[in-house]
């Protein structure tokens, strides 16, 4: 909403400078988005010396225009009068109301036109006035300047007056060419099925029965509260004007404006709630101005159809509640001054013996700090005590209210959700660990292309009803394509050292049969949101340097990372399966299983996909079921005493039959180990060759150590022998 400072001064004798006013308005909740000098066309001055925000006093025309961001609850501030009321309250100045003096002719409006409201649920009031013998022509300079200052285009003197009053008092008006209204009749009704109307913007509109229209005896002539019709528009030949000042139901106007895709100054105000008591005043003001600048004769009386006058609420307000909400006992005098100045009517309320909420007001006198407050008709947003308290807080000043720091008195994490408190710790542990392993965290979009998504999973994604684009029209049910794009983005930019991870979500739609249509207040059919941890790697394990040549990442880099990740948790019963799924390269993919269910699936992206995605290097992927991982406890840190006696390492060179994986060897070793065998690990593996056909050679490094004594060579030899003997069933033997 553009507010001209000059215009504002017609209502309140504000002395504050533009900069000060800007700050003060912001502190009232009327955020000033920008501040500029008014357009200088009228004054005939050039561009030079245009005011800037830093130097607002340099206006060419002497006026300053504030662009105020008016929140949706304050339609009353969509006018100079409304903003002036706030300013007057702030600076403790009187609010000047425009003097309206009408010269009415003996001829009556009532005879010239008739008004009927057939749908009073959508139109609570309709006021009309007629001005005859007008001369339609361009507006005078002062009016043009005013309109241009607030960003409106001048049209003709009659239309300009309606716009002027709109900006002045905030009430939308409409002017019809009376001669074109068939039978001089106004009927406010819902549109008929198939009814059409060509609006002022030249668009031929098909109306629906939810659209309220203004009609004459035969047809719709305006889209009520939104826009007039072209046929009854004021033109140069117009001689008699019917002025409309009405009050339409906000919800209906909002629906119509939305469904017709038509947002106007009028609909903007009506859908937020206009001031129903302003309707006749605005009408008088407009009639007066038209008579002033377009000549003409104002017919006597207003035709005012107002079937059920509004009763304003009476809201009890107590000092105790003010303290309870604001933490400060705003002085009663200040409360009364603020609300009074804002147009609220206040009556002191007797104290009840039980306390602040006592409503049993006795007729004899009141007490300080207890009121019955009636909000003005233009404050539809104020309906409860707390709304009044907000008004007090606004004008008392948020920054003047006290401040105190309080700590929580109840932790739900400890009391009810033991897992929850630990969850964040686990997430931190995971991201710290992955960063330590050289992975960079990424965030990717949840909204993806459905076709690409479907290539990687059978899980149904969540389909959006109004997506921004086809490429972002479903919520992903797999995180793989997102990771591929992230890797591709960087590969395309020449990166050769990629390790990325994302702790994100996938969204799996519930099948339609699963009862999507539960009560809206009860979440039932919401999609399954699962957390997944996705790892992606490509390129070199480490870039080439003087210390080490470049070496490509391989399967075991990925597997090792996952092992480190999983080992951060207490994951007993962890299994392994050398199989992946469709988008992995066969022979380069595997799974970690927890209780037989996949916990992580990982491997090399299938080469057919790598080609399709135009990847220049191998891409390694892992998907971890993050929900399951986070259910596991973090590995407990508790100290286990270690042996005081020396450990001895011995290497065993084994020949293992082809087709016997290390896993089997390890299982057999674990079964055959003496307690002195502290650990073993493979340190070298040579593939089968000429010397040992059908076998591969495995160098096993074993650590022997006793908790109770220093082992003798004989004991070590014995333990080593038993270890090797344990491998005999597998056909494994010592290389001689």
């Amino acid at each position, binding site marked *: 909403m553009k507010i001209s400072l000059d215009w504002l001064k017609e209502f309140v004798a504000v002395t504050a400078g533009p900069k000060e006013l800007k700050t003060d308005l912001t502190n009232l909740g009327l*955020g000033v988005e920008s501040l500029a000098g008014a357009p200088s066309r009228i004054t005939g001055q050039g561009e030079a010396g245009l005011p800037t925000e830093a130097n607002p006093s340099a206006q060419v025309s002497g006026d300053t225009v504030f662009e105020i961001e008016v929140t*949706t609850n304050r339609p009353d501030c969509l006018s100079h009068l409304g903003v002036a009321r706030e300013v007057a309250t702030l600076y403790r100045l009187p609010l000047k109301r425009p003097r309206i003096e009408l010269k009415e002719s003996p001829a009556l409006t009532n005879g010239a036109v008739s008004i009927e409201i057939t749908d009073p649920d959508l139109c609570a009031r309709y006021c009309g006035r007629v001005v005859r013998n007008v001369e339609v022509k361009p507006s005078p300079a002062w009016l043009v300047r005013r309109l241009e200052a607030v960003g409106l285009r001048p049209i003709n003197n009659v239309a300009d007056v309606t716009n002027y009053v709109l900006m002045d008092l905030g009430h939308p008006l409409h002017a019809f060419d009376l001669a074109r209204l068939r039978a001089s009749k106004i009927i406010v009704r819902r549109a008929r099925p198939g009814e059409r109307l060509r609006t002022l913007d030249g668009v031929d509109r098909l109306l629906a029965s939810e659209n309220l229209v203004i009609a004459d005896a035969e047809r719709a002539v305006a889209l009520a509260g939104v826009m007039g019709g072209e046929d009854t528009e004021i033109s140069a030949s117009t001689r008699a004007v019917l002025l409309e000042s009405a009050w339409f139901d906000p919800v209906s106007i909002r629906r119509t404006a939305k469904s017709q895709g038509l947002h106007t100054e009028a609909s903007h105000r009506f*859908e*937020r709630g206009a001031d129903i008591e302003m309707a006749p005043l605005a009408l008088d003001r407009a009639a007066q101005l038209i008579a002033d600048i377009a000549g003409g004769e104002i017919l006597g009386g207003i035709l005012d159809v107002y079937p059920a006058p509004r009763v304003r609420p009476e809201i009890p307000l107590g000092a105790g509640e003010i303290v*309870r*909400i*604001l933490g*400060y006992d705003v002085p009663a005098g200040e409360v009364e001054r603020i609300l009074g100045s804002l147009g609220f009517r206040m009556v002191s309320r007797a104290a009840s013996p039980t306390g602040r909420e006592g409503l049993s007001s006795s007729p004899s006198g009141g007490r300080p700090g207890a009121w019955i407050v009636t909000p003005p008709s233009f404050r539809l947003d104020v309906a409860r005590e*707390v709304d009044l308290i*907000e008004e007090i807080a*606004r004008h008392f000043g*948020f920054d003047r209210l006290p*401040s*105190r*720091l*309080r*700590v*929580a*008195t109840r932790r*739900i*994490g*400890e009391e009810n959700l033991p897992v*929850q408190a630990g969850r*964040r710790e686990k997430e931190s542990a995971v*991201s710290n660990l992955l960063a*330590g392993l*050289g992975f*960079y*965290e*990424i*965030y*990717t*979009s*949840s*909204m993806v292309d459905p076709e690409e998504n479907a290539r990687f999973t059978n899980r149904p994604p969540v*389909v959006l*009803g*109004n997506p*921004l684009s086809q490429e972002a029209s479903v*919520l992903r049910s797999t995180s793989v394509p997102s990771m591929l*794009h992230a890797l591709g*983005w*960087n590969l395309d*930019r020449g990166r050769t050292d990629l*390790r*990325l991870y994302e702790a994100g979500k996938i*969204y799996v739609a519930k099948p339609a049969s699963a009862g999507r*249509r539960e009560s*809206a207040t009860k*979440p039932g059919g919401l999609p399954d*949101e699962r957390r997944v941890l996705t790892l992606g790697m490509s390129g070199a394990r*480490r870039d080439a340097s003087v210390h080490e040549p470049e070496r490509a990442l391989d399967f075991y880099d990925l597997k090792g990372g996952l092992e480190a990740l999983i080992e951060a948790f207490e994951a007993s019963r962890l299994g392994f399966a050398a199989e992946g799924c469709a988008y992995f390269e066969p022979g380069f993919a595997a799974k970690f299983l927890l209780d037989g269910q996949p916990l992580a699936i990982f491997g090399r992206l299938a080469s057919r996909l790598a080609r399709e995605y135009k990847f220049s290097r191998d891409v390694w992927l892992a998907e971890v079921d993050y929900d399951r991982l986070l259910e596991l406890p973090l590995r407990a840190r508790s100290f286990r005493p270690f*042996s005081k006696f*020396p450990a*001895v*390492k*011995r*290497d065993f060179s084994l020949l293992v039959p082809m087709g016997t994986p290390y896993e089997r060897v390890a299982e057999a070793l674990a079964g055959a180990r003496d307690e002195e065998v502290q650990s073993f690990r493979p340190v070298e593996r040579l593939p089968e060759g000429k010397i040992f056909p059908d076998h591969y050679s495995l160098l096993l490094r074993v650590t022997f150590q006793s908790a109770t004594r220093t*082992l003798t*060579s004989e004991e070590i030899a014995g333990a080593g022998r038993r270890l090797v003997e344990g491998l005999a069933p597998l056909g494994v033997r010592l290389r001689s």
Partner: protein
Amino acid sequence: MTIEEEVSKTLAELGVTEAPAVEALFAEVRAAMDSERQELVSRGAASSTEREKTAKALRDRWLGRKNGLLAHIDEKWLKPSSRELKPIVGRKFNELRQTSAQLEMEALIRDVPVRAKVNSSDPGSKDASFASTGQALSTATGTVAVTTKDSVAVEVTTAAADLTLPGYRRRLGSIHPITRVQREIEDIFLGLGYSIETGPEVETAYYNFDALNIPATHPARDDMDSLYVDAETVLRTHTSPVQIRALRKHGAPLYILAPGRVYRRDNPDASHSPMFHQIEGLAVDADITFADLKGTLDFFCRKFFGEKVRTSFHPTYFPFTEPSGEVSISCFVCDGAGSDAVGRSCRTCKASGWIEVMGCGMIHPDVLGHGGVDPERYSGWAFGLGIDRFAMVKYDIHDIQLFFQSDMRFLEQF
């Protein structure tokens, strides 16, 4: 005198009373050891059995636990040495042990062609520590450090390297700026005793709008243009629905923080993204007032942006709070001046001196009611902030799209 004879006498018996004499004595021992080692090395072509035998003999002669030369030196030279000589004797003895560790290695490396017998030193021997593989050393007190350093020293001296070359580094990854900022914010409130709650991103229109006083007919719904799944299901436009869910689940009192991803139907540009991240905070208790809102958010802003930051609160409108406010902080770059010392306008606060950082307010009684909490008994305050926006302000990022591009040139900076 042979070495054996020398080491069977104390320094006093040898007439060594001054440091130079100690050094000379050790140099002699060292030379003997070196020559014996050389002999072993040069015998490379002999059979492995023989070489092993020689190596073992050499080890026993020098390093044997009871009768090795070093043990004698320890016993005869070091232990009884005078207080004046002890430091120099100790140092020299340690140097000798380092050399002997090399001897050990030389011997072992040439042990057998395969590595099968690496580290087969006698168990229980203190000398096993010379085998220099971390785990084995836990009992060899005193020797550990020396030995471990040894192997490093060996490598450095043999590499003949340019020490000014860059170090051998493992690359560390990084944690995304949004996660970083989220954690930082969470930490501040966790420190005040708040708990963390989450809610679904695909939300019912009821929780996202209606329960928060935004009926379908409300113009405020236009302010948050939503992406929807169907008439009753939307991608949540803010984290505020968690207020209702948490109140229903836990009741009052309640002090929570609800971080998460939210969606708006905005076309992506430098300052808009259809997907971004918010943190909702909420405190409901028997005597929560606007003062708690101010005090807590003031504390939070100082913790997050720095102690010198001032906060300012001004009214605004949210359907779910009453009164509603916005929090601005004095610019932490220009300190609220709007420009720097030479008058250039501040980019961070757009020359205004203030940065608007979040919305807040006293929870509307109807919202408490929708959460199943009696608004006559309890009151509460809530705030909502954009994590992405906080990260942009904190790290001076001017394009929100950078967060979601996964570009390494961006990620590497965090």
